[in-house]
Every structure is written in C-alpha cells, then in structure tokens.
C-alpha cells in the first residue's frame, strides 16, 4: 500500500485526469462516483470550486508525502552528524550539550512551527523547516546512544588500535551498522512528518490554499461538510492510510530487525 502512495506521489501528473487547480465551474460539488448522482468522470467528486477531488488527492499525496520525505532526509542528515559528533565527545561539554538537547527535544512540533510561521510567514516550505527542526533531536538522540554503545564494542576498539581516526571510525565501522536503526527511525519520523505537515496545513499554518496538500484540502472541505461530506472524508482517509501504511512498514521492519538481533 505504501508503494501505491509512492507511485501516486511520483507519477501524479500521469495518473490524474485533470489539473489540480483546474476549476470546472459547471461541476461544483459533484458527489463521488459511487453515490447516486455522482459521475464516473470525477471519481471522488469535486470540491466547492469544481476541482476534481481525485486529482487533488493524488497531488496531495505527492505534496504531503514528498515534503515529509524531504523533511525526514534533511533531519536525518543533520541529526546523524550532530549525534555522531555528540556521541564521540566526552566530558563535561558533551554532558551539557546532551542534557540540553534532551530537554529541548520536549518542545512540541506545533510550537516550533508556530514560532517559525511567526518569523517567516506561512507556507509549505516554512512548515517543513519547522518539522525538520523538530525531528532533528530524535535523530541526534538515537545516533548518539547508538554511537556510544558501539564505541564500547570490541571491533571498534580493535580498529582504534589499528590507528583509525575518529572520522574513519565513524564512516567505516559505525555507519554501516547504523543503517538499520536509521531506516526504522526514518519510517517513524516519516509518519510523524506526514501527520505534522497535514496538521499544519489543516490549521492554516503550513501550506496555503490552493496548493493541493492533504491537510489544506481537508480544511477547505470543512466549509462544505454538510453539503459534501466526501470533501472531508476522502482527504482524511488519504492521510490516515498513508500514515497507517508507513507505520505498518515501520513495524514490520522493526520486528524483523529485532528478531535478527535477538537470534
């Protein structure tokens, strides 16, 4: 199912029958095709401006999933390098930095997003910054404890004795072992990022209408909830299934990993 979403995201322009912003003034609020007076040419119906909901959802998946993915990759890059650095550090400086980081990790994403929006204004890119910022500490934390743990193991000590520098140590010895942890953390972060991006869109703090972002589509649909409930139901479903599929994949990865570690 995740693959389906990825396909949606990658090939949105090919799959979709219409343009995401195209308004069809003769067809406002057409019900989805499975309802009595729906039309097959609009699979999920249309919204209050006559835009094809199916198209918007597909583009929405693209925007939401895509930006979430970029966010996670960014956060991962920054987080891992910081975390590795922190993990290799010793002494008071590291302890202070670590403690502070842990405490700051507790600041809710929404709060960071609000502050960033206040400084830079609303927009998808700004909300992505906010979420990146909020995700970084997690990666730092996990990388640091991982590096810490690894540093104590024999093979590291062995290569240390071989005279490897810290950088070599990290790139050649620790990083390869870390990929699994990163993948698991990455999927976890991805599901959080998807929820957060759509939540910010929904709250009108992130992506702005008419950009087809799932949260924004949902918020737009809210105005016509009673008249056209599918405008709320479908985008919500899309976010839900997207997150669900990411979580299931993540869960699967994690238990596979655990099994390998324990046996």
């Amino acid at each position, binding site marked *: 199912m995740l693959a389906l979403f990825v396909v949606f995201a990658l090939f949105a322009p090919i799959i979709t029958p219409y343009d995401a912003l195209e308004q069809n003034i003769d067809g406002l609020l057409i019900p989805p095709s499975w309802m009595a007076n729906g039309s097959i040419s609009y699979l999920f119906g249309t919204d209050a401006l006559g835009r094809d909901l199916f198209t918007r959802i597909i583009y929405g998946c693209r925007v939401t999933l895509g930006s979430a993915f970029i966010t996670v990759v960014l956060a991962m890059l920054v987080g891992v390098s910081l975390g590795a650095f922190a993990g290799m550090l010793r002494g008071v400086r590291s302890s202070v930095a670590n403690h502070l980081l842990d*405490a700051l990790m507790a600041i*809710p994403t929404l709060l960071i997003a609000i502050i960033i929006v206040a400084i830079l204004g609303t927009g998808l890119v700004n909300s992505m910054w906010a979420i990146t910022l909020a995700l970084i500490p997690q990666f730092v934390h996990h990388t640091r404890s991982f590096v810490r743990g690894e540093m104590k193991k024999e093979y590291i000590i062995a290569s240390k004795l071989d005279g490897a520098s810290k950088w070599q140590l990290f790139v050649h010895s620790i990083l390869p072992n870390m990929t699994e942890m990163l993948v698991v953390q990455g999927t976890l972060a991805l*599901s959080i990022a998807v929820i957060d991006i759509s*939540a910010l869109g929904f709250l009108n703090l992130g992506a702005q209408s008419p950009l087809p972002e799932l949260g924004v589509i949902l918020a737009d649909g809210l105005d016509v909830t009673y008249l056209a409930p599918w405008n*709320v139901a479908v985008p919500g479903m899309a976010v839900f299934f997207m997150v669900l599929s990411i979580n299931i994949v993540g869960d699967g990865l994690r238990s596979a990993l655990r099994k390998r570690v324990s046996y």
Partner: protein
Amino acid sequence: MTQILVRYCTLLILTLLVLTIISFSLAYLFPGDVLENLTGLVPQNDIQRAALEKQFKLDQSYVHQFVYYVSNLLTGEWGYSFTSGLPLREEVGIAMPATIELATYAMLMALFIGIPLGYYAGIRCYSTSDYAINSASITIYSFPVFWFALLLILIFSLQLDVAPLSGRISLLYHIEPVSGFILIDILLADTENKSLALKDALSHLALPTFAIGAIATASMARMARRSVIDVKHRPYIAAAISRGLSSWQIFFRHILRNALLPILPLMAIQITTLITNAMIVETLFSWPGIGNWLIQAIYQRDYPALRIGMMAVSTVVITLTILVDLFNRVIDPSREKYERAAV
C-alpha cells in the same frame, strides 16, 4: 541522591535559561517593532516611546535588556496581548490549566487502559487477541488527530447528539476560575446548579479527552506490549519458570515491575505528543486552552502572546519531562541516564 537532585535542578535552570534567551531573541526575530513585541504596548507618541524604551532598558546593551526581561518574567510582568490588551499572565493563567486538565485526563486514560491492554497483549503475544489489540492500536495510532476529532464530532455530536462539541461548559454557567480546573472549580463554586454544571462539564470533556486519549492509549499499549515481550525473553524469566513458579507469580513478581520501568521514560516523550495533540484538538473543540490561544495568536500575529505562550508551554513540558526523568532515576538508579526503550 542529593547529587542527582542538584544535577536535575541545574539542568532545569539551564534549560529554562536557554528558553528565556530564545524567547527574548524572538522579540527581535519577529517582524515589527522590538519594543512592541517585547511589551505588547503600542506607544501613542514619541515621548511615550522614549519613556517605555527607557523603562525596558532598550537603550542599553542586550545583556541589560535581558536581565531586565528576566526580572520582569520572574515578577510576573509578562507584558500585554496585542489583540485583547489584557495582561498576558492573566490570559495564560486561564488557558494553561485548561490544557493541562485535558491532557491529564487523556494521560490517565492512556495509563489505565493502554498499559493493561499492552500487558495483556504482551503476555498473550502472537495470539489472536494480541493481533487484534496490536492491529487496533496501530490503526488508532495512525489516525491524524485532527481528523479523528472531526470524525468524533460528526458521529457523536452531530449524528447522535450525545455530546456537545465546543467549550468546557455551557456558557450559561458562571464558574469562578479558582484552580483553573473546571471540575474542581465547579465543586468549589457555590451555584445551586452544581450537579447540572458538573454533568455538563463532563459531557464537554468526553469527546476531546477521548480524541487525545485514544491515540495516547494506542501508543501506550504498543509500548507496554513491546516491553513485556522483551522482559519475557530475559533469562530470569526462564529461571523463574524452571523454578516452577506459576505464570501468575511470574507476572506479578517479575514482569509487572520490570516491564514498567522502560515505559516510564517513554512517558516523558508522550507528554510532548500529548500536549501537541491537545493543542490541535483544542482548536477543533473550541476548548479555551493554550493551544487554541496560541493558534489564535498566530492568526492575528499577536507577537507578545506568542513569545509568552511559547515560553509557558515549553516550560511546562520541559519541567514535566525532567520530573519524569528524575522520578525514573530515583526509582531505578541502575539504569543508564536517558536510556529509553524503543517504541
């Protein structure tokens, strides 16, 4: 012990200091006038402006300004809101308890439902009931909270008409805020309609608590299950089995406590998620809490409010997090600092 306390106190103070620095610099980072952002007062003319600048030491170095800012924070002079013109301390004082109340009930729900469920699933791991609980929890866990809350509103408020959808209590009641917790306030207030008011407040609480609580419960259950499974694979359990202890004995003597320990630090992370979710759900249920207040503030670009709101929320969250960590250290000194179980 004292050492640990001192350590955590320093940590707390240090973090709060960093937060204060951030919130102070926000006055400069936000668009608009620094003086207005810092005080929430809009000077009507140049004379007033000069006087205010002098008062807030804006004519002196950043360090002086900052020191003055901190002393103001400590004495409760938090500035004024742009939009309402009210002292921010008063506004936060009303909004903050509302959020904490909501989050507390949701947390209790997660603790009393999520953990037992997780234990049950963990003990019966890889059975049908485990699968059922596990898939239910992953499903609920995947719900975007804003949509979940919307669904609840659509079903329970609009279709079934069993619960109201906005606010803490019907506006017809006059409840003097004493503690800020609506249920306690009702008990303290002397109105003749106490039981009515209580019932009304409970029905207002039901849906938002459930919306936040369900998601927290799901992740709690997942953590508990994971933790129990981990503990079950430990050698001492095998030893206990070989000693011939019954499964109940094993559960009560070994699993119960040992599985709980790794969950506790996770609760610290949960607090953050919980507060974030509470903030989102508040806007949907028009709950007069800090999240709703902050989001209104950002819509209206009320910079002083944002600055203080950010300060207040993160202070609460961080204090709670550190307390949980401290608690965890105290009851289980053997653990390495900050070691946390996986979700």
